[in-house]
Structures are given as structure tokens and as C-alpha cells.
């Protein structure tokens, strides 16, 4: 086995690992890694469940001038509809002509669904006494009024069907959802088809095809419009997010695993100068990864974005067991069985301890972190077994093969000066306190966005969309749910009262409740006789409109509305309630009302005065009203994680101190070990104070891992110092070298995550890497001198 070329070994096991990575399916729904009991997270869940469409791509166009944007959007829409294999439908802002031909159906349905007391004004306009007066006034305005858009609309609506008398409420006067105020930014919805959009890999393939079509169109467009300003096309929405997040997670896992392997290999080479055992060590790690991924997939199903980082952490931890076995085989010359007897218990205990620390992440409120912790815990268990039963025999055979070769001198951990160690012990904490006092106290990042993904074109396009459609940045989707329509209307009323109070208290700027767009069977049946009476006047009214001088186009909206009323009344004979007729009307109602799995949902919008503050969330939310608020989510997570730290971390620290007391039975050693933790914490605080790094609700959860390794390294070093009477050089040669490799490999594993796409994961990796390196430096270079000083041992 030892004669197989290393490249073949790595290729074989690498192929298996690659196969396992490809089989893993990631969950591209980011909010599922957050605490599910927060109203903000529930809001995102319900918004996604009832109102999100997996296959709906949002296309944005930004041009220098409004007409350029309009022309470009029209042309792009035409281009996309020319690909029926990929695009089912395209929705964009209608022209006035399209609006008046399509709008009648929706207007008719809104009147049927309106409160009874709102109907008389329209009834007056449609009556034989009022209609002529109304039509004449419209014609006068059209002929002699100020020629603006209002007048043009009036010319298509001589009976004022679109004068809804406040039915839409105040909130309806919000910004145009399809175009920026100056018209230079346009939005279009593209309904995809041909693939299963719930699978991000399928969505990615579909998106790639659409991107090619858009890119080809852009080239063509720019060639024909050289004089125009720059045109920017953005793609966002569910399929774009899913494809991007899924692909980035796969890339992150591959990148972090490969970079960790490479760096650990370099570290191994620096310390042992051998390639063959290295190839088998890497293969063992690949086997561990493959088994863990398979078990993880079986236990958890889809893995979250946070779990993408587990592989690198696992590599950094599992390699230590292989190193211990290899060194032991080298030093003792034992066979595999002997190795398992001598170092097996230690490895198993170490694995159990590490697994316990990672399992403690289950105490965190973040399901994403818990899942990652569980995967690492499973992985280190598998790692210990694979190394003991798979790698140990290989290590023994390598040692035997190289028995007669000259021994390669191992790198020496050079001692640092005692004075430098003591200066560091005083200077670092003082510097930290001064930094905290002069610059800033450690605090969780207020603006932390848990979903932020690096280099995300779809996120950039989404943010641009929110920015361009002025006022949308603060608009928060609010979902109200109920078990039947009657209950939904009751809850909308209650929600309206709460929202009104919040507006009065200055918590909300404004709100838009979709009540009029929610089918109301009671109102529809109550209004049916009135509408039936209007229908009997249809011929007269259309005749009067024509006689007044309006053309067929001018009467089209009115005629469509009457047809829609006929359709709705026919529906009421057979169904519980009438739904609007026509694509525009259905699309509009579906944006605000959903019926799924026996639940009825309405989509409202609120604009908080202070989006990050949670007072407004508490003021309006209950079990049936939740908000998809990213602004307050950061605050909610900080509150929750802050609570976790007090609830979990402090008691944990107390228990660990107690354990240290039992292990050492010496207050000096307990203080020394705790001081090492303080030293590492100081380094982290200095790093977050003086560099762009900051604490957030994700990376702060790495503190138990950092303190766990810090205690571990400290215990090993202090026990070694006790054994050899405080002999610094001796301790460094033995345990120091081991800690150097363990700390180095763990830091590499965590550090490789610094390049991860998810900011939360990247910041966690960076903080853990720095913390572990600080622990290692403190344990290997500083602790021995502090030990001698505290125990008053002189040279």
C-alpha cells in the first residue's frame, strides 16, 4: 500500500469526496438558519410561503433617460418572450392604453368587494339622473381642461369608475412599484418555465440560459444605440438568489476544503518533510469528509449556508489525530494495535471533548450554527475512528519503511524571552482597556445583515431596486394569516387598529392594508343586488357615452367593467366568493392575497420610522401578524445572542473554572489558565477595535470554541510544565510542537472560511482563527514564563 504513488491515492479519495460534495444539497433559503420564533423570521417564512414565486425573475433596467429605459425594457421584454421554452409570461408597467383596456375588470371587482356604504356615490353617477351630467362634465374636462395625464384618464373613464372614493386607503398613494420617479429605472417580472425552480441547481441552469439571452440582447442593443447613455440590466428575485446562494455555498465548501488541505499539507511538510504519509493523511481526511457529508445529508437533509463551513473546520481538527498517531508510531515503534492502546483513549477523549464544545452550539439560538456544530461534532467522532483504524496501520508501515533512513531534524519552537512574556502580560490587557476607553467598547454590529452574501449581483440588483423605487427601502412586507376569510377580515381590522395606534405613537410613518383586495364573501353577496341593478343600465350608459362624443376606445373601460360584473355575479351563484376576471386583475389580487394549505394570507406594508428599532414590531405583531423586516432582524438577533451569552456562556465559564480547579487543585494554575483566555480575548478585542473586523451575532457564537481551545492548550502546557518542573525548553519541544501544529491546523481550517460568501460565516471563521492563534501563542510562547513567574521558579 505504501508503494502506491501519492498522486493516485489523493486522486482516488479526492474523487470520492468530490462525488459526496456534489451529492450534498444546500438549502438556499437563508432565513432558515435564524431563530424561528422571531416575528421577523416568521414574516420571511410566510412571505416566502404564500407570496413568493420560485420561478419569478425580476429584471431591472437603468438608463440615462426615461424613454431609453422604456424602449430598452420593451425591447428586452419582446426578446425574452421570443424564448417560450424558458419564459411563460412577462409582466411590466402597462401603457395607458393597456391599462384602460385591462383595468376595467379589476375596478369592477373592487366595487363588488367594497363596503356597502361606499357604493351610493357610484350608483348616483350611473343613475339615469346622474349619468348624463357626469358624462358631460367628463367631456368638458377633456375638451377644455388642462391637458395632463388626469385629463387623458378621464377621457377613458367618463363615468368615473376609477374614482374609488378612498377605497384604496391612504397608503395606496405610495411610489410606483414598477418605475423610479424619473422613469430611468424600470422593473419587469419574468415568469420562468421548463425547470423545477425549487431546486437551486435547476434554477441556476435556467438562469444561465436567461443570462446568455440577456447578454446577447445587450450587445445587440448597445451596438444599435451607441449614442445612448450606459444601460445597466440587473437580474434579481427568487431564482437569481437561489441559484447564486446555492452555487456560492458549493464553491465555498470546495474552496475552504481545498485551501485547508493545501495549507495543512504545507504545515505538515514544514514539520515532517515527508510526502507519502502526507498523501495518506490527506486521503484519510477526505474519507472523513465523505462519510460526514453522507451522514449529515441523511440526518439533516439540505445543509444550510453556515454548514458549508463545517468541512474546513473538521479538516483542521481531524488532522491532529493523524499527526498524534504518526508521531507516536515514529517515537514508540509500536504496531497499529499498540498505537490504539497507547494513544487511542487520548484521541477518543479529545474527540469527545471537541465534539462536546461544538455540540454546545445547540444552546445558541441560531439553528444554522447548531447544524454546523452538530456536523463538526459528528465529523470529529468519525475522524477519530478513521484515523485510529484507517490511518494508524498506514502510519506504522511508513514508519517501518523509513526506519533505516536518517532522521529529519524537526523544527524547533524557539523560546521567547521571559521579559517579553511578562511585558506582554501587562501591556496587552492595558492596551485593550485603553482602546476600549478611548475608541469603542466591544458591541455587536448594529447594521449586521445576516443574509449578506459577498459578490452577489442579484443582491446588488435588489438593493438598487429598493433604492430606485423611492420609499421602498423602508417599506416592510407584513403578512396576516387566518383559517378562513371571515377571520382574515377580522384580523385585518384588528391589525388596522394596532397599526393606527402605532402611527399615532410615532412608530410608523404609514401603512397600507390590502383589505379591499381580500375577497369578502359577505360584502360581495350584500352588494350583488346593487350591482345587478347597475347591470340593467348597461346599454343605456354605453349609449349615452357614445352620444356624448366618446369613441369606442373611450367606452372600452366601462364596457369591460360591466362584462366583469356579469362574470362575478355568475361566479357567486356557484362559488363562496367571486374572484376577479382577467390577468391583470388576478395578478394584482394574487400579489396581496393567497390561499394555500388551508391558510388565508394577506400582504400589507408598513413603514417604520426607525426600522432597526423593535418597538414597532412589538406594537403591531402577534401570532397572526408578522413582519419580514430585515432592519429590525439585526437588532432582534443581537438581543437574542446577547441573551444567549449571558444565559449559556457565563454559566459555561463558571463550570469550566470549577473543572480547572478540580484538574489543577492550584489557584495559581487556575488563574494562569484563565489569564490565557483573557489574553486571547484581549487580542480579539484589539483586532475588532483597530481593524475593520467587528463583532456580530454570528461570530460572537465562536467564543465558546475559542475559549474551549484556549483552556485545552493551557491545560496541556501547564501539565507539561508541572511534569518537568517548569522547564520551558522541554515543554516547548514536546507539547509545544504538538500545540503548534494543532493550533496552526485549526486556525487554517477556520481561517479558510474568511473567504466564504456569507459574511456571517466569514466573520466567524476569521474571529475563530485569530482567537485560536492567540491561544496558541499564549500557550506555547508566553504561558511557560508566566508559569515560572507565578510559581516563583528561578533559572
Amino acid at each position, binding site marked *: 500500500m505504501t508503494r502506491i504513488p501519492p498522486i493516485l491515492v489523493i486522486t482516488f479519495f479526492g474523487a470520492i469526496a468530490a462525488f459526496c460534495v456534489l451529492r450534498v444539497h444546500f438549502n438556499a433559503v437563508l432565513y432558515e438558519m435564524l431563530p424561528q420564533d422571531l416575528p421577523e423570521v416568521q414574516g420571511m417564512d410566510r412571505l416566502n410561503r404564500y407570496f413568493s414565486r420560485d420561478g419569478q425573475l425580476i429584471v431591472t433596467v437603468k438608463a440615462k433617460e426615461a424613454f431609453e429605459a422604456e424602449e430598452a425594457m420593451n425591447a428586452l421584454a419582446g426578446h425574452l418572450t421570443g424564448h417560450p421554452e424558458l419564459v411563460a409570461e412577462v409582466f411590466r408597467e402597462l401603457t395607458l392604453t393597456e391599462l384602460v383596456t385591462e383595468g376595467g375588470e379589476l375596478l369592477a371587482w373592487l366595487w363588488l368587494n367594497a363596503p356597502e356604504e361606499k357604493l351610493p356615490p357610484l350608483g348616483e353617477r350611473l343613475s339615469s339622473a346622474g349619468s348624463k351630467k357626469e358624462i358631460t362634465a367628463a367631456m368638458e374636462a377633456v375638451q377644455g381642461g388642462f391637458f395632463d395625464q388626469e385629463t387623458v384618464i378621464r377621457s377613458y373613464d367618463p363615468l368615473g369608475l376609477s374614482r374609488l372614493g378612498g377605497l384604496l386607503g391612504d397608503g395606496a398613494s405610495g411610489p410606483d412599484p414598477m418605475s423610479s420617479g424619473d422613469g430611468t429605472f424600470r422593473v419587469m417580472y419574468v415568469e420562468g418555465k421548463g425547470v423545477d425552480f425549487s431546486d437551486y441547481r435547476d434554477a441556476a441552469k435556467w438562469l444561465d440560459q436567461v443570462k446568455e439571452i440577456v447578454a446577447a440582447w445587450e450587445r445587440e442593443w448597445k451596438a444599435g444605440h451607441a449614442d445612448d447613455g450606459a444601460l445597466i440590466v440587473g437580474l434579481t428575485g427568487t431564482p437569481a438568489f437561489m441559484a447564486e446562494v446555492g452555487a456560492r455555498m458549493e464553491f465555498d465548501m470546495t474552496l475552504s476544503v481545498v485551501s485547508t488541505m493545501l495549507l495543512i499539507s504545507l504545515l505538515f511538510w514544514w514539520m515532517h518533510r515527508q510526502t507519502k504519509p502526507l498523501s495518506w493523511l490527506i486521503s484519510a481526511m477526505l474519507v472523513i469528509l465523505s462519510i460526514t457529508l453522507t451522514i449529515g445529508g441523511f440526518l439533516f437533509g439540505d445543509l444550510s449556508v453556515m454548514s458549508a463551513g463545517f468541512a474546513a473546520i473538521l479538516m483542521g481538527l481531524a488532522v491532529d489525530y493523524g499527526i498524534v498517531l504518526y508521531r507516536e508510531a515514529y517515537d514508540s515503534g509500536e504496531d497499529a494495535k499498540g498505537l490504539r492502546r497507547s494513544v487511542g483513549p487520548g484521541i477518543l477523549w479529545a474527540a469527545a471533548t471537541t465534539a462536546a464544545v461544538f455540540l454546545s452550539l445547540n444552546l445558541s439560538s441560531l439553528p444554522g450554527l447548531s447544524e454546523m456544530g452538530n456536523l463538526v461534532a459528528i465529523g470529529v467522532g468519525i475522524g477519530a475512528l478513521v484515523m485510529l483504524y484507517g490511518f494508524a496501520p498506514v502510519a506504522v508501515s511508513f514508519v517501518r519503511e523509513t526506519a533505516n533512513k536518517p532522521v529529519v531534524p524537526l523544527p524547533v519552537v524557539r523560546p521567547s524571552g521571559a521579559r517579553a512574556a511578562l511585558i506582554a502580560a501587562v501591556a496587552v490587557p492595558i492596551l485593550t482597556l485603553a482602546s476600549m476607553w478611548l475608541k469603542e467598547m466591544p458591541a455587536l454590529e448594529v447594521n449586521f445583515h445576516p443574509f449578506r452574501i459577498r459578490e452577489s449581483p442579484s443582491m446588488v440588483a435588489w438593493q438598487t431596486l429598493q433604492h430606485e423605487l423611492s420609499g421602498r427601502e423602508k417599506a416592510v412586507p407584513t403578512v396576516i394569516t387566518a383559517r378562513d376569510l371571515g377571520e382574515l377580515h377580522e384580523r385585518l381590522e384588528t391589525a388596522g387598529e394596532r397599526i393606527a395606534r402605532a402611527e399615532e405613537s410615532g412608530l410608523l410613518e404609514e401603512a397600507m392594508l390590502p383589505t379591499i383586495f381580500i375577497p369578502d364573501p359577505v360584502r360581495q353577496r350584500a352588494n350583488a343586488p346593487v350591482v345587478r341593478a347597475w347591470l340593467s343600465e348597461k346599454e343605456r350608459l354605453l349609449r349615452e357615452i357614445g352620444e356624448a362624443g366618446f369613441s369606442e376606445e*373611450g367606452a372600452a373601460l366601462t364596457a369591460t367593467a360591466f362584462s366583469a360584473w356579469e362574470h362575478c355575479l355568475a361566479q357567486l351563484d356557484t362559488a363562496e366568493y367571486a374572484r376577479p376576471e382577467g390577468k391583470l386583475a388576478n395578478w394584482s389580487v394574487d400579489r396581496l392575497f393567497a390561499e394555500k394549505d388551508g391558510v388565508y394570507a394577506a400582504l400589507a406594508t408598513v413603514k417604520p420610522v426607525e426600522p432597526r428599532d423593535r418597538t414597532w414590531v412589538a406594537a403591531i405583531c402577534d401570532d397572526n401578524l408578522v413582519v419580514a423586516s430585515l432592519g429590525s432582524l439585526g437588532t432582534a438577533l443581537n438581543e437574542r445572542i446577547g441573551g444567549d451569552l449571558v444565559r449559556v456562556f457565563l454559566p459555561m465559564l463558571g463550570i469550566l473554572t470549577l473543572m480547572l480547579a478540580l484538574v489543577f487543585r492550584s489557584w495559581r494554575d487556575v488563574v494562569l489558565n484563565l489569564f490565557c483566555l483573557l489574553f486571547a480575548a484581549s487580542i480579539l478585542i484589539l483586532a475588532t477595535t483597530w481593524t475593520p473586523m467587528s463583532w456580530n451575532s454570528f461570530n460572537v457564537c465562536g467564543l465558546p470554541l475559542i475559549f474551549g481551545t484556549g483552556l485545552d492548550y493551557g491545560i496541556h502546557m501547564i501539565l507539561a510544565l508541572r511534569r518537568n518542573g517548569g522547564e520551558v525548553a522541554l515543554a516547548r519541544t514536546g507539547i509545544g510542537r504538538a500545540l503548534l501544529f494543532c493550533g496552526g491546523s485549526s486556525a487554517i481550517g477556520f481561517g479558510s472560511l474568511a473567504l466564504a460568501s456569507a459574511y456571517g460565516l466569514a466573520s466567524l471563521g476569521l474571529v475563530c482563527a485569530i482567537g485560536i492563534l492567540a491561544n496558541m501563542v499564549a500557550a506555547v510562547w508566553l504561558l511557560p514564563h508566566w508559569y515560572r513567574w507565578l510559581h516563583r521558579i528561578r533559572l
Partner: protein
Amino acid sequence: MANLLRLLSGALLLASVLSPPIFAQSSSPDMSVVDRWLATNTGVSTLRIDFTQTRRMKSVKVPVRQEGTLWLDYQNRQFRWQLGDPAQTIVVSLGQNVLIIRNPMKRYEIRQAGSGGTPGMAAMANGFPRTLQEFQQRYRVIETRPEANTSRIVTRPLGVAGRGVETFTFVVDASHFRLLGIEIDLEDGSSLDTVFRRVEPNIDLPKGLFQPSVDGYTETKF
């Protein structure tokens, strides 16, 4: 309807076949006619234009032809536009708003300038550009078209004024390059042709011209 428009514009369905881009891109338009027309505006501080306006609305069977007058005060950025003699409709600038008076109905409305888009009137109410720089900030020239006795400068208004407008054409005299009229084509197929019957630059404007009385009138929403 404006509210409904905003609310629903996100829901609007596109016809499956879209019209091709409106303008075939030609070579760069001849701007000399624009320069020469703009030169006629130099030094103009006030203006009175008597015009005849023809509205061809797609929704109305018969075109409507009416006469009116526009007064412009460039220095104080004020305008008064009125149709009919005696005036049936008067529109004057009121800071950020416009005051619309309908004399036969004895009613008036104060509307935000530019609300709902004021494609035709906004362009006229803001006065005519007097320098090429000012012109290019407000219009993009699609083509300049010489005809028998006139030249047509076909443009697209830029910014908000361009919304809903297909083309905005300045008709100038081919020999003296004075503005003879304006033709506005809207997206819905409607059009507004304004022919200038008489143009008087730098005249004294009567006091109170831009502050018509609304005593005895009722505020309304037309």
C-alpha cells in the same frame, strides 16, 4: 385613478407581442436648425403667444379645436395659459403647484405641478429653452426634418416630462427659424397640435395676470 395606477402598475400585463423600438436610429440629427431657432429666443424675457390648439384624443370621436393664449415671464418663472375667449380654462403657476380654474363651472383646483405627468403643458409652462445647453438638458433630438416652408425638430422630452410622450416636435419657420407651433404625440395615440397665431416677445405683462381671482369659486378635484 392615479392611486390605482400606482398601486396596480406593478401588476400590469404585457401584451405578448411588443412593438419594436419607436425610432430607427438615424445618423446624428442636423443641429444647425436647433441653433438657429434658439438664437431667436435670445434676449426674450416675456412672451405672449396666441395659439390654436387641436386635440385629437383616441377616446373622443371628434378632434377638438380651441384658441387660447400663453403668457410667459422668464425672469419670475411664471406662466398663464388660457383657453377660449372669454377664458373657459385658466392655468397659472403657483410656486410648486398649478392653479386650474374652470370658469363655466365656477370651480378651481390646486394641483401639484407635474402630478400625474403634465406632458404637453409642462413643457410650455416652463418656457422655451434659450441656449443649446438648456435645450439639451430638457430634450433629446431624434431628428430634424426639413419640409416645404418649415423645419420639424422631433424630440423626446427628458426626465419626468418625457413620461407618456411619444414625440415632442417643435415646428419652426424654414426661413426665419421662429417657432410656429408644437406637436405632441402621446403614447396612447392621442395628439395635441398647437399652432402659434401671434408671438409677441418682451411685452409688458398686466398686473395681476398671474394671480387670477377665485372669489366665488369652489375648490374641487376635476
